[in-house]
């Protein structure tokens, strides 16, 4: 096979251990009583050595620029380079949040236009760009729900309903804001309307859903779902993680959701940076627009300005105005793609997903009905007869230069593999991926169990890491 992958291996080359001898600080301008005695143990190394160190580390890291990254619900599409170019400019980086509005006209215009375009894409009335990530968007959304019910004299509403397919951030957000979580089981992979009806009552503050859901199934009962929740006075929250499936086809607002977040680092292709920064703008209906965090950007005649004057605002959720350079990248991406491009993106994402799913049926199990949106979840149960598990398949894929899918999620599927190829992959890559999975199924199970072999390190002992945690160089030294 032409797909054998080799990642660079540079064994053991820590920088921290190169720190100098313990060093006293000389000529410290601060008085003795408060001055630091020992200098922090930060090594002094020539710059070129530092650059070599990090270049080696980069060679031991796998990004979307290295190969297929079919992590379900993460939308790891190619990140076009023009957005990086634009974001590197002085007009983006060298501006201060407390500069006079006359000096940041460009930024305010872009933020305003992004608010407007996102509102249109989501079918919402107004948008805040402040939240730093999807999970913070969820937090913002539930804060708005909290404030809305309080203003309406209904602060007794203390329950939030979630389907059991929800992303982990949803239940975590619910508890973080002190709500009682009511989780309802799915029926055929979708929201069970009867169970929802039973769960919804006068204590329901809201319901959170991603549509298509985490199985990649479109919740066809969405209209009924909205009715059930609205009838008891609750609000509907749309988790935007899976928006890449539906652009130009439907909108959360059209599906009667009241609040939603956008993951700009997913749908709008801002790079994920190995774990962030992202951006999680939140959109709301007209009724809720006065509850958004402040400031938002408004346009008065031809002038853009920061507006702090929202009647019911929840106040801030983050310092300053959001992850601005991430916002700029997403803005540029939307300008480049336009309405036609965004629609094409969703169409191709869904086509790629259904094609790859069809290619893999027969090799892995596919629970629930067939038609999927941008992602699908298969079960690794056929691995069991070889004495293997999903994790083994995932690790062996790494040897072939593919990032593994999301594994063991959603929880309602046994040995789950959640696969999202995104629109930017060619048919040939999808074919390769399917063929490699078939190949792995026919490989010696013992060998597969020991995978990976071609990566910088072998299978990593995560249990040991958690049992005796070493979180810093200083904890290691104390050992």
């Amino acid at each position: 096979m032409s797909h054998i992958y080799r990642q660079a291996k540079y064994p053991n080359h820590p920088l921290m251990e190169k720190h100098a001898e313990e060093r006293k600080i000389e000529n410290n301008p601060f008085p003795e009583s408060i001055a630091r005695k020992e200098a922090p143990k930060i090594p002094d190394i020539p710059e070129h050595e530092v650059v070599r160190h990090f270049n080696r580390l980069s060679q031991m890291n796998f990004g979307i620029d290295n190969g297929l990254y079919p992590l379900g619900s993460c939308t790891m599409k190619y990140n076009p380079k023009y957005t990086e170019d634009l974001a590197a400019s002085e007009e983006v980086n060298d501006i201060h949040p407390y500069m006079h509005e006359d000096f940041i006209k460009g930024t305010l215009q872009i933020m305003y236009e992004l608010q407007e375009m996102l509102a249109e894409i989501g079918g919402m009335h107004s948008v805040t760009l402040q939240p730093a990530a999807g999970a913070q968007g969820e937090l913002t959304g539930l804060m708005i729900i909290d404030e809305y019910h309080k203003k309406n004299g209904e602060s007794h509403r203390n329950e939030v309903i979630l389907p059991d397919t929800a992303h982990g951030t949803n239940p975590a957000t619910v508890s973080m804001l002190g709500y009682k979580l009511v989780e309802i089981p799915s029926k055929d992979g979708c929201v069970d309307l009867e169970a929802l009806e039973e769960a919804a009552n006068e204590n329901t503050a809201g319901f959170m859903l991603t549509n298509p859901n985490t199985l990649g199934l479109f919740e066809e009962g969405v209209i009924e779902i909205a009715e059930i929740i609205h009838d008891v006075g609750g609000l509907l929250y749309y988790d935007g993680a899976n928006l890449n499936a539906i652009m130009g086809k439907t909108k959360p607002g059209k599906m009667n959701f009241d609040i939603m977040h956008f993951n700009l680092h997913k749908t709008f292709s801002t790079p994920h940076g190995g774990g962030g920064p992202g951006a999680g703008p939140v959109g709301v209906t007209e009724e809720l627009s006065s509850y958004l965090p402040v400031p938002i950007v408004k346009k008065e005649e031809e002038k853009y300005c920061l507006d702090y004057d929202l009647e019911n605002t929840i106040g801030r959720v983050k310092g300053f105005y959001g992850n601005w350079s991430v916002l700029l990248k997403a803005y540029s991406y939307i300008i480049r793609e336009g309405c036609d491009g965004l629609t094409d993106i969703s169409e191709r994402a869904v086509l790629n997903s259904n094609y790859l799913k069809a290619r893999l049926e027969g090799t892995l199990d596919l629970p629930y009905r067939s038609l999927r949106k941008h992602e699908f979840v298969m079960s690794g149960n056929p691995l069991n007869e070889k004495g293997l598990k999903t994790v083994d398949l995932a690790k062996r894929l790494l040897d072939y230069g593919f990032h593994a899918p999301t594994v063991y999620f959603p929880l309602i599927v046994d040995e789950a593999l959640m696969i999202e190829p995104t629109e930017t992959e060619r048919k040939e890559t999808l074919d390769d991926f399917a063929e490699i999975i078939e190949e792995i199924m026919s490989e010696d199970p013992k060998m597969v169990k020991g995978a990976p072999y071609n990566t910088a390190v072998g299978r990593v002992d995560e249990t040991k890491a958690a049992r005796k945690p070493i979180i810093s160089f200083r904890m290691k030294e104390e050992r």
Partner: protein
Amino acid sequence: MDEEKEMLEYLGLDEVEELFRDIPSEVRDDIDIDEGKTEMETIKYVKDILSKNRSLDEFSNFLGAGIYRHYIPSAVKEIVGRSEFYTSYTPYQAEISQGMLQALFEYQSLICELTGMDAANTSMYDYPTAFAEAVLMAGRVGRGKEFLVPENIHWEKLEVLNNYLRGSDIKIKTVDYDEKTGKIDKDDLQEKLTDDNLGFYVESPNIFGVIEDDTSVFEDLKTDSKSIMIAGTSPLSLTLLEPPSEWGADIVVGDSQSLGIPPSFGGPTVGIFACKKRHLRRMPGRMIGETEDSDGNTAYCMTLQTREQHIRRERATSNICTNQSLMALASACYMFVKGGKGLEEVAKTNYEKAHKLAGKIDKIEGFSAPYFNSLYFNEFTVETPIDSEEVISKGIENNVLAGITLDDKFEKLDSSVLLSVTEMNDESDIDTLIETLEEVVQ
């Protein structure tokens, strides 16, 4: 035949639209924005708008209050620009993510060296959210319900905290500041440490730029009241100042923006979050741990994940998932490129320039700098003889960004501005500011 047709044929379909047949007609809608552009047109379009901005480079800049303009070595930008780093996702698959994992472990280690704490996470969104999460964590670690916060903290931080506490039974009580020193009023703090106390927050340098000395008092108060101490700090100042671990802090928060990250309108930055070993399992956010691979080689992985939302769901310590990892990488690169001695030099330069400027301002009639009779690092409050707004406006006429007004945010203050100085401010910046302030009183 093009590949889309081939795929459709494989699926037995004629049109891609058939894949959307499960979306009910009553929710169908298309997008009403402009059509797309070429890459070349996009670049021109966006650049034209961006050109309406004026960068800090065009001014004599003294803005701070949480965002600082320091020099960033080219090597830092180069490293962060490696696409193996910036196009990777959260390092769930440790074996092919060793690069990012090790870099983040090093970032955690560097933060621990500066703060004196045992463990740090890979980042929170920023300083205000790190602070809010720290108070929530105190609630998991401590006993009481009342948390004390000095009244002189950044107003945005307080707003974020109040929002994060919506679902919590923790009650915030404010502690006065000493109007002469700008430090926390220790008598008031002591008085308010009641039986129901959960913990208290101390910040140094604080929003007035003031540094707390006499820090041993905090440890005593903490021990006596059995409460949790959260310390807020500026990481660069810690190359010269005793680390918060010495004052007995349980949790340290701050922002690494001053270490290798441009101002970029206030985001993205990196919220620092560090704590003592004993609280490790109550921490929010992501942590990288050192371990071994199957051959016994040193390896890194995300660890203690059973605290996190993707495993623990509603029982997670926080809902945070995506954080600011790439910015943490930038900070680690910055610290390594500068080195321990280099960082110390930057800090000393900042200190000297700020103190020199304050001395010059203090000589101008009517101005008083620093406003508070206390130690400070590279940021300080200035009392102005005329309305602080007018000082800022006068500055703008002369291309000087003369800080931000403070008296509109803290009512006990007389007319005053907050100025920040870094190594980027040269002699001419300082001269221009001094001339501006002299014009003000003429």
